């Protein structure tokens, strides 16, 4: 299916992975890399057993335990019986089918969307899937990466392929320079607030523009991570020198001649001049303020210096009621109880460094609980090597062990009912961080500033007074 027609990055990668295209059928899409974890894989392994078949490509499959693990005392057996059973089942399944597993205690263990990139498994031009919607994270490298359900996990385990209708293509361009104190997280929360929690449904989104290309790989991952929060199947960013510099020398990155050949191929992937998109939006980076959400979906976000908007529907009213917020109320000054810095959105070393730099020599406000949960064992090790743990300890922040933690209210880490948590994670749904918990999504910097003040602040003002 090669032609001279200008093509998008997304089209190039998608089309090169189509095993079969037939009228009235979804494409049979070949998958280069399959990540699995304890929550969405057991039923798929049972499916393989039921059919009496092997896992198609163990060399292209990688496992870790992240969603349902404690983030304290990981060297001890998991206390809760159902969680322990689920993690043990992952170990048994990976043993039986021969899948590489970075379980608890392994130096590579961590959140699946943190470890893939840091190990160099995530590479430009690949197709990557996982039974987790935030698989979109890996698109930051110029790969097509998306979350799938367990039936599709079983498809990939059985055949290394999945049936997919090709999504439409959208481009979101963010041009210009960000203000001091405004980060990748704020860019993506801003875009979702403009397009809504369903504005990207049916699309695969390429993020482009100078504000995007100036981001580090960590920042790009944050942006692509949350593309699912506007309903998009995934986000994708053109690979460039920043991408290559990040990948060079990593555990599973190509080496020697293979590296040279890979880079040559990766350089052919960016969208051609003249390629067209089904939808396109352009934003000015200078318009973006530090963002915070006030409602119960990630589209309900505003600049931190704004007040809570007037509800437009019954669902909006229900959201404000759940959050205990009034229309017209100022967000700055809102007291918070918990601060969660972690998750596949913001638990990479750059995030931990930004927090440490801000809080160095400061202390958390009385009565606020602050959890910092590194995205992986490698991030944890690096943070300790750089002495970030000491800065956190002096500030009264608790550095925990790697996992999804308080992002999803599944493991032991939950926010109590009625409490306000400023969180660097990706979802503010009702009960997401625990039954009745009230989540305000924000960047690591805004979260750190809130931890110190005990209420929501405009981090730009804090930075100006330093």
């Amino acid at each position: 299916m090669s032609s001279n027609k200008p093509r998008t990055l997304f089209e190039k990668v998608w089309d090169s992975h189509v095993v079969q295209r037939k009228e009235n059928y979804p494409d049979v899409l070949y998958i280069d890399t399959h990540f699995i974890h304890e929550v969405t894989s057991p039923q798929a392994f049972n499916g393989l057993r039921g059919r009496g078949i092997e896992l198609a490509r163990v060399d292209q499959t990688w496992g870790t335990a992240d969603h349902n693990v404690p983030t304290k005392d990981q060297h001890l057996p998991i206390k809760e019986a159902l969680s322990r059973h689920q993690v043990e089942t992952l170990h048994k399944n990976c043993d039986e089918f021969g899948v590489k597993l970075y379980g608890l205690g392994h130096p590579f263990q961590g959140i699946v969307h943190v470890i893939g990139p840091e190990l160099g498994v995530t590479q430009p031009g690949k197709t990557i899937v996982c039974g987790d919607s935030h698989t979109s994270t890996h698109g930051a490298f110029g790969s097509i990466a998306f979350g799938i359900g367990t039936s599709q996990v079983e498809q990939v385990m059985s055949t290394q392929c999945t049936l997919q209708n090709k999504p439409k293509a959208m481009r979101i361009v963010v041009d210009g320079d960000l203000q001091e104190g405004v980060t990748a997280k704020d860019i993506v929360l801003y875009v979702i607030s403009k397009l809504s929690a369903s504005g990207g449904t049916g699309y695969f989104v390429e993020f482009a523009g100078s504000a995007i290309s100036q981001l580090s790989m960590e920042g790009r991952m944050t942006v692509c991570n949350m593309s699912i929060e506007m309903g998009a199947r995934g986000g994708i960013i053109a690979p460039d020198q920043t991408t290559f510099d990040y990948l060079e020398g990593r555990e599973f990155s190509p080496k020697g001649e293979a590296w040279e050949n890979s880079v040559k191929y990766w350089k052919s992937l960016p969208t051609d001049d003249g390629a067209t998109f089904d939808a396109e939006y352009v934003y000015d980076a200078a318009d973006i303020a530090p963002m915070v959400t006030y409602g119960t979906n990630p589209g309900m976000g505003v600049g931190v210096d704004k007040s809570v908007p007037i509800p437009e529907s019954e669902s909006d009213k229900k959201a404000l009621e759940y959050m205990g917020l009034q229309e017209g109320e100022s967000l700055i000054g809102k007291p918070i109880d918990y601060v969660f810095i972690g998750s596949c959105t913001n638990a990479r070393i750059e995030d931990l460094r930004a927090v440490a730099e801000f809080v160095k020599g400061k202390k958390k406000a009385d009565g606020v609980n602050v959890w910092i949960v590194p995205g992986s064992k490698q991030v944890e090790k690096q943070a300790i090597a750089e002495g970030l743990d000491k800065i956190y300890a002096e500030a009264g922040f608790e550095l925990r062990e790697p996992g999804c933690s308080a992002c999803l209210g599944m493991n032991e880490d939950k926010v109590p009912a009625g409490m306000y948590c400023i969180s660097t994670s990706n979802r503010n749904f009702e009960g997401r961080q625990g039954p009745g918990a009230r989540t305000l999504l924000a960047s690591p910097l805004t979260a750190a500033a809130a931890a110190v003040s005990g209420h929501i602040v405009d981090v730009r003002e804090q930075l100006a007074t330093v």
Partner: protein
Amino acid sequence: MKYIKSTCVPLKIENVDTDQIIPARFLKATTKEGFGDNLFRDWRYDKQDQPIADFVLNQDTYQGEILVAGKNFGCGSSREHAAWAIGDYGFKIVVSSFFADIFRGNSLNNGILPLIVSEEFLAELFADIKANPATTLEVDLETQKAWISGKEDNKQSFEIDEYKKMCLINGYDDIDYLLSLKEEIAKYESERPYTFNV
């Protein structure tokens, strides 16, 4: 599944995410059964595990195999447990004006029809159910039409991909289909334009 006629359970809320359909703390099972008990858990039961009277699943007035919900149903997490919970509870169809992609695919892979109707049709259906909980919706998958019983002159056409329609009608499975393509997949692997190191 070819034709279904059923009363409906109305859930007039937009952006229902899969964390509401089945909260994460109930995802610890390693099999697909039993998730229906915790469907909409935190809207359905209070902290003492007592049913919340004004939630629709706790009202005898509303029964049936069809769930009718506000737009952007099933957004958020990819957890297929949401589709398992809806199916296990006994729903065969979810009607909305808009579904999130992953949920829509997961539903179809579990024999549940995500039925997309216009905003107007959805509003009319909600209004009719409210006025008369015995209102029934009829859905004919073969002709891709849905209508409120007694309003046959206002049949709503709905879209469904041809392949998935065939799977639903015949109870076919994607994996059987993919396994039948073993040779094509092996050929693709051997001729891949670019081979990755891992």
